[in-house]
């Protein structure tokens, strides 16, 4: 199995397409960091304008933690599209170049074949997030330094002390890994049904876009299906950055406002992964491989 995964990883990282995602993340991250380095104060003034009508805010608002949060807000919406480029190509790519039938002549089971391919996809996904963490968090801390994190929600403001933030990012990235693996599972599942990569990639992107729109629209009809859409749960990483308060309205360091929501989202996402991969294995075992 380990050799199979190694082979799949070799194939993934030997394709130039793989590095598009890494380059895109690096470019976007550096552009945002550069912009905030030059005009960070103006950006903070714009974002905090409503709050500043009533309050005087003093301190280093634009710091590494804040920049990373801005980057995650921007990028974690688009990273699924980059993951689809690889995940949706995993089986259909082999079918396209005619190697699928050849591979299955080897003495390995179809289940092992699918699992090895999916694990390799997961490793690629996690590598992409580690890359994002290095650039988005560590590089931002290096450039902007650390400080308290001041976040604006729709109806309230959250201030986190700097010694209570890093573990939240660790949690958020781990959560994002599960969320992105779910996206990978969708792409991987769709790649089963085509003999070229374009179809599954476009289909995965379309599903992400449509489901994201359904998740963000507050209409009673959509509210019924929202809890079951994986896109609703992709943004739950933000819950790591909301903190509990006691009766005196004092924040409780090390707490999360709504841990149940994180657990619920993780359950839904993991259920999606298990169901999609199980169906993929089930169909693939019975599939007549012609290419």
């Amino acid at each position, binding site marked *: 199995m380990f050799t199979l995964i190694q082979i799949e990883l070799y194939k993934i990282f030997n394709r130039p397409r793989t590095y598009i995602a890494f380059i895109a993340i690096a470019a976007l991250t550096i552009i945002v960091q550069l912009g905030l380095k030059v005009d960070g104060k103006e950006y903070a003034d714009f974002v905090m304008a409503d*709050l500043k009508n*009533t309050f005087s805010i*003093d301190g280093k608002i634009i710091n590494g933690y804040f920049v990373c949060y801005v980057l995650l807000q921007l990028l974690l919406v688009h990273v699924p599209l980059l993951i689809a480029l690889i995940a949706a190509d995993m089986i259909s790519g082999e079918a396209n170049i005619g190697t699928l039938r050849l591979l299955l002549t080897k003495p390995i089971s179809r289940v092992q074949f699918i699992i090895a391919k999916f694990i390799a996809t997961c490793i690629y996904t996690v590598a992409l997030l580690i890359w994002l963490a290095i650039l988005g968090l560590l590089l931002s801390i290096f450039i902007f330094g650390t400080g308290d994190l001041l976040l604006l929600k*729709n109806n309230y*403001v959250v201030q986190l002390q700097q010694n209570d933030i890093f573990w939240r990012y660790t949690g958020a990235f781990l959560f994002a890994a599960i969320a992105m693996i779910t996206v990978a599972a969708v792409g991987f599942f769709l790649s089963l049904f085509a003999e070229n990569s374009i179809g599954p990639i476009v289909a995965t992107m379309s599903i992400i876009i449509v489901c994201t729109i359904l998740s963000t629209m*507050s209409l009673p009809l959509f509210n019924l299906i929202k809890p079951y859409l994986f896109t609703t749960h992709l943004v739950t990483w933000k819950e790591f950055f*909301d903190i509990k308060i006691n009766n005196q309205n*004092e924040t409780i360091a090390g707490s999360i406002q709504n841990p149940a929501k994180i657990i619920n989202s993780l359950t839904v996402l993991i259920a999606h992964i298990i169901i999609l991969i199980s169906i993929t294995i089930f169909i693939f075992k019975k599939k007549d491989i012609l290419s």
Partner: protein
Amino acid sequence: MKKLGFLFLILLCFQSIVFSQDATTLLNKVKAKINLVNDYTATGKMKTDITFIKAPIGKVTVYFKKPNKFKLKKENGISILPKGGVSINIGAIINVEDFDIIDSGEEIIDNTITRKIILLPKNETNDVALSTMYIDAEKLLVKKVVTTTKENGTYQILLSYGNYSQYGLPDKVVFGFNTKDYKMPKGITMEFDDEGKKEMREKMKNKKGKVEIMYNTYIINKGINDAIFN
């Protein structure tokens, strides 16, 4: 009978003038006491109790320099103070000029009998519309101030004294105010989830905010660089 009535009226006016002069004297005595402090650097803790702000208790350093330079810095952090928060500094409140002073009797604050003095600005452009002070006349300490401003609404400052009462500097200041509506566009917050919105809306009906500063130490009259206030 008419003469008696006239005499009573004169006595009433005379009493009012005397009381007003007493209030001015009292206020001047308090001013003189506070004016002994040219500058101070104080350290303490700040607690923000505002319905829609989840903020931690943080260590703060407060700088003051006469006549009204005031700066509050949160150690390695971000401080959120209500506008008009400069008035958390008692020196700025008491060193007011061009005010009409009205003595409004006595009131008990924290089991202490205080003199209630109302200050009305003579200048119409002044942001302060009305300010009421409750002064412990025996110890020459300001115990409470209620100020109504044109721009920032009404706020109340409660002061408790301890080790530094001889300088008129409080150990604890509680700054109470009415909060305004807070609502951010979703496009800015990127929060598309409506969950918890109702609960927060209910909480926000209580639009009272409070900022407490508990001072531990004061360094008085040791000089402060003006650059700190920039």
